[in-house]
């Protein structure tokens, strides 16, 4: 008689959770040296279960199927000349930013999950983190493969590694991951699983994925949805771990609250550039940053998840009100500032077209007409010196140029915050970034700030900076004067 097939739960318990072992050659403390580092108390590590109940067998089968679907699309893009189908090549400016920021981010997320898998002594979390570290490698590889196709036809994709490691703008995302990688294992988990996966990656892969589909960029459409399908599992890890920490011991509450405050703010700041992509770069727009923020952050996280957590004594992350206020403004600030930097970017900034402006006026009735359209008028004046004359001051914590406004005073009223530490002054763009420094000054003081390093000569001679960043002369400049734009117009006619 054939044996009855094991159910999902039994299969998971047998093949994942119960495979854990107690060390005999070393003590448990020696095996997991960072368990107590952050003060988190977990009394029974076996209480945790992964709701997805992933086993090696199911993981390999499901991921294999995702890969099959993805590569079928990818091969078709080559075959059917997908690079000509886009609404406009301007969309690819988003992909250039993505390639330099996300590929490096995903690779570092892979390393971060390895660290979590090694150091959190729960079999459920360790196994979930192992599979997730493999997911992240899959994302990097698929994205590199896709950008390989763009690179045959367009500028700005040829040297993503140098942009990622050396360009001043990508320092933002690098510092995010370096902070997380040098934290303890529980903070690392909150950083990646909550800050990124539960909260903000939705804006990058779902909203931006839908925007890619609307702009007929099948490449990113395919890559974003296959990537984000793994993120669902990652969210589960985040939610499971978060609740476990909160429920296991009341002493964990203030520690977890601090992690949530820090990583909500850090992820929020890091994702500023996504607003620029949704509101400005996308030739055909699907959803404004404001709408995406309301749906994915306000409804789902702030008024969804945090309502569930408040019974444990967890409150919404600090400065959430400021993030809600800023949803009206920050994409415009970023677009205006980047517009002045065509000479030091590996993508093409531009001023919004009449069509863009109409849409912006509709989506931002509060702020467009009164504030931001006027700034654009001034910037587009022929007498205005467009090129920003030097290197910008950046925030010690988030490393964005200091361009964020004082809360409640939008319109280029730049906010400044400072702290003194060991007789030295440090500058921040916001209370959120200042608090992070004040809590760990000896860590954040070590930040590698691009303008300082450039002046110190760390990046080679100033006249050779473009080369150091991996840029070719055609990479920068205004989109509407670029070779990419000219070629796209030419090819479109041939294809028509």
């Amino acid at each position, binding site marked *: 008689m054939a044996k009855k097939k094991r159910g999902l739960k039994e299969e998971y318990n047998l093949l994942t959770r119960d495979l854990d072992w107690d060390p005999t050659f070393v003590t448990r403390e020696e095996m997991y040296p960072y368990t107590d580092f952050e003060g988190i108390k977990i009394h029974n590590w076996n209480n945790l279960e992964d*709701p*997805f109940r992933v086993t090696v067998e199911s993981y390999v089968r*499901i991921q294999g199927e995702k890969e099959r679907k993805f590569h079928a699309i990818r091969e078709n893009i080559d075959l059917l000349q997908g690079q000509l189908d886009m609404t406009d090549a301007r969309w690819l400016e988003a992909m250039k930013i993505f390639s330099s920021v996300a590929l490096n981010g995903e690779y570092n997320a892979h390393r971060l999950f390895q660290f979590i898998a090694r150091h959190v002594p729960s079999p459920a979390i360790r196994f979930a983190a192992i599979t997730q570290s493999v997911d992240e490698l899959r994302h990097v590889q698929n994205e590199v493969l896709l950008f390989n196709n763009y690179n045959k036809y367009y500028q700005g994709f040829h040297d993503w590694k140098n942009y990622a490691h050396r360009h001043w703008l990508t320092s933002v995302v690098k510092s995010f991951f370096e902070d997380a990688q040098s934290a303890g294992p529980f903070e690392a988990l909150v950083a990646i699983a909550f800050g990124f996966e539960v909260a903000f990656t939705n804006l990058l892969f*779902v909203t931006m994925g839908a925007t890619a589909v*609307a702009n007929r960029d099948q490449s990113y459409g395919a890559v974003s*949805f296959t990537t984000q*399908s793994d993120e669902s599992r990652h*969210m589960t890890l985040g939610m499971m771990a978060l609740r476990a920490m909160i429920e296991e011991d009341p002493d964990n509450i203030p520690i977890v609250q601090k992690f949530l405050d820090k990583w909500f703010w850090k992820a929020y700041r890091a994702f500023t550039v996504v607003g620029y992509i949704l509101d400005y770069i996308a030739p055909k727009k699907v959803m404004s940053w404001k709408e995406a923020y309301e749906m994915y952050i306000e409804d789902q996280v702030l008024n*969804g998840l945090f*309502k569930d957590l408040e019974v444990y004594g967890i409150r919404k992350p600090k400065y959430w009100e400021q993030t809600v206020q800023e949803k009206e403004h920050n994409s415009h600030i970023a677009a205006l500032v980047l517009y002045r930097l065509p000479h030091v970017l590996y993508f093409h900034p531009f001023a919004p077209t009449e069509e863009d402006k109409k849409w912006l006026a509709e989506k931002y009735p509060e702020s467009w007409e009164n504030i931001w359209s006027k700034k654009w008028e001034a910037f587009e004046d022929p007498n205005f010196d467009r090129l920003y004359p030097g290197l910008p001051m950046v925030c010690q914590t988030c490393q964005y140029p200091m361009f964020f406004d004082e809360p409640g005073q939008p319109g280029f009223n730049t906010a400044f915050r400072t702290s003194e530490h060991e007789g030295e002054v440090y500058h921040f763009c916001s209370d959120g970034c200042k608090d992070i420094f004040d809590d760990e000054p000896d860590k954040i003081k070590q930040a590698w700030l691009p303008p300082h390093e450039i002046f110190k000569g760390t990046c080679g001679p100033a006249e050779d900076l473009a080369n150091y960043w991996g840029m070719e002369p055609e990479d920068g400049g205004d989109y509407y004067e670029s070779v990419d734009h000219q070629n796209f117009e030419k090819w479109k006619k041939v294809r028509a």
Partner: protein
Amino acid sequence: MTQVNERNRYVGLDLTNCPESEAILEAIEQDNENVKITRFPGYVKVEAINRLVINKESVEEFLGDDWETEDLQLAVTSYYGFMADWDDEHIVLQWDNV
């Protein structure tokens, strides 16, 4: 009918456009109350108040084919709420404290 308010909140799934997603949507609509569906380029958001159940049997009926609950991973691109239960027969997404 349950209304969304301070405590009653939506949970939801974002499903990538594919035949399985359509069957899952129909199964959700049949087996849950107050279902809200919003379509976007490339994906669809399906939400219900406080709790959303996906039954394997219903999905198979609408799909006209075998479907395992773990196959949800091939369609789901994002979700919110807690995965309260996931076994061979059904998946439950919910807020615990409503």
